[in-house]
């Protein structure tokens, strides 16, 4: 079994890195037709690496999985867009591109609250029923780039929706957390090499090195779980990956904040975006305790 990413996947990560670094956000132009969970993990690790905000998990991973799982050419096309009854319109563009082509999507899996940053379309999944939905009450998020809404259920679009769509969302969230952790480690490493105290860079002190080593170990041990879960896509593996990446990214966030001398608390510093997104994603798509329970159940 080959555990490393392919050359193409590494290239994709490199392209996305340059893409986000250049300030581009129209992700669909680069990752159109990415459906394989491993490829998606590569995409979302880079999304996290740049703390890109928006309903990307839903639009690029979950909605295509929901639509694809409903079989054949069923596409969530223009029907939903114009609110003309059933959302499963005659749209031919099913599968991967469906979400991105028809605008952005937000999906709610109660009790998980949807995170909608100006999503164009809303869906609600209750058990195995997929409904149209519309945003109702706005809730507040710890991360100001996330806009949480409670959804009001609308007409039923389909029943017996594939259960793996939720797991795919969880997995992408795990990948995003991994990327966030990596970004915070990189920022912190750069900072401790530049910041001097007692006449030398603070990165030279053993206590600081230990902190950074712990962050790195946490992230490196979480990564194989994410990649493994992308291959098996079982509930147990996905939940385990989410728990591990939540812990690793959370630890990275705390260490980053401390080693930056707490400057990340202020919204003016770049780090704050990463801290807040990490805090939000840690409990998004199911809290660590929910996923621990799912792992326990599966054992």
């Amino acid at each position, binding site marked *: 079994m080959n555990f490393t990413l392919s050359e*193409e996947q590494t*290239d*994709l990560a490199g*392209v996305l890195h*340059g*893409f986000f670094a250049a300030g*581009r956000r129209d992700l669909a*132009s*680069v*990752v*159109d*037709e*990415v459906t394989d969970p491993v*490829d998606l993990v590569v*995409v979302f690790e880079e999304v996290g690496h740049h703390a890109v905000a928006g309903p990307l998990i839903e639009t690029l991973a979950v909605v295509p999985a929901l639509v694809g799982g409903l079989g054949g050419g069923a596409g969530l096309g223009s029907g939903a867009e114009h609110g003309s009854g059933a959302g499963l319109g005659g749209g031919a563009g099913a599968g991967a591109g469906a979400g991105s082509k028809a605008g952005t999507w937000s999906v709610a899996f109660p009790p998980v609250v949807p995170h909608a940053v100006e999503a164009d379309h809303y869906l609600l999944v209750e058990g195995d029923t997929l409904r149209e939905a519309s945003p109702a009450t706005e809730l507040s998020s710890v991360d100001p780039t996330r806009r949480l809404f409670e959804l009001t259920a609308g007409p039923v679009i389909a029943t017996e929706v594939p259960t793996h769509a939720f797991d795919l969302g969880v997995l992408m969230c795990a990948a995003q957390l991994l990327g966030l952790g990596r970004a915070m480690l990189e920022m912190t490493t750069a900072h401790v090499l530049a910041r001097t105290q007692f006449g030398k860079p603070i990165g030279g002190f053993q206590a600081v090195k230990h902190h950074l080593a712990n962050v790195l170990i946490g992230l490196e041990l979480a990564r194989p779980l994410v990649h493994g879960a992308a291959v098996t896509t079982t509930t147990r593996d996905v939940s385990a990956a989410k728990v591990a990446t939540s812990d690793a990214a959370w630890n990275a966030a705390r260490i980053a904040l401390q080693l930056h001398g707490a400057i990340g608390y202020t919204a003016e510093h770049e780090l704050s975006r990463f801290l807040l997104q990490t805090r939000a994603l840690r409990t998004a798509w199911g809290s660590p305790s929910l996923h621990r329970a799912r792992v326990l159940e599966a054992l």
Partner: protein
Amino acid sequence: MNIVVLVKQVPDTWSERKLTDADHTLDRESADAVLDEINERAVEEALQLQEAHGGEVTVIAMGPDRATDAIRKALSMGADKAIHVSDEALHGSDVLATAKVLAKAIGTVENVDLVIAGNEATDGRAGAVPAILAELLGLPQVTQLRKVTVEGTTIKGERETDEGVAFLEASLPAVVSVTEKINEPRYPSFKGIMAAKKKPVSTVTVADLGIDASEVGLSGAYTQVLEAAPKPPRSAGQRVEDGGDGGSKIAEFLVGQKLI
């Protein structure tokens, strides 16, 4: 319309570039190698012209084995096929030899309507290859363009220089070089990256192109680098304490440097 794009792999623009001690050629191992940014724009322009006029885009690169990475990048952006001229004998080639080899390589592509190059590579910075190439191929050269349009068998371009903008026109086939103002290169999509793997890349040697190895490389170069020294480290400079006469001290310094 069949377009050939010339691409070069260069050391990353932001890295410190060095010369090797042995023969004063560029030390390609010391820095990350990337597709030269100006070539990304050349590829982008070719793809835009292809989208408008159809045809095929062929990428030609001359360089060591690792230049395949730069070729892959161009293919993943959307070019159709590539020719990689790779030969030990090419090591240390000057602009004339480079243009000669590229001209022969372009000759292996059928019905070329347009050759697009960047105006100059970020490592060599001679900026002469497109012009020499046009001369060798006997084609009109429309260089340093910020805008390119093709109408029928005519190519029109805007050349921007310090003196102003020149509006140029030539008949196809022609050789074109573009500046960084020409466009914003696209990012390869995942689909493009996957497709690039399957696109044909033919690797040729100088012998395959019918060129004698002695005409190219270090030995065939018209100039020789006898000695090279690294740029001296920046010295600390001179500090003037302002005791009320700071202005006149600065003036004295500038007079001493013959600046005023």
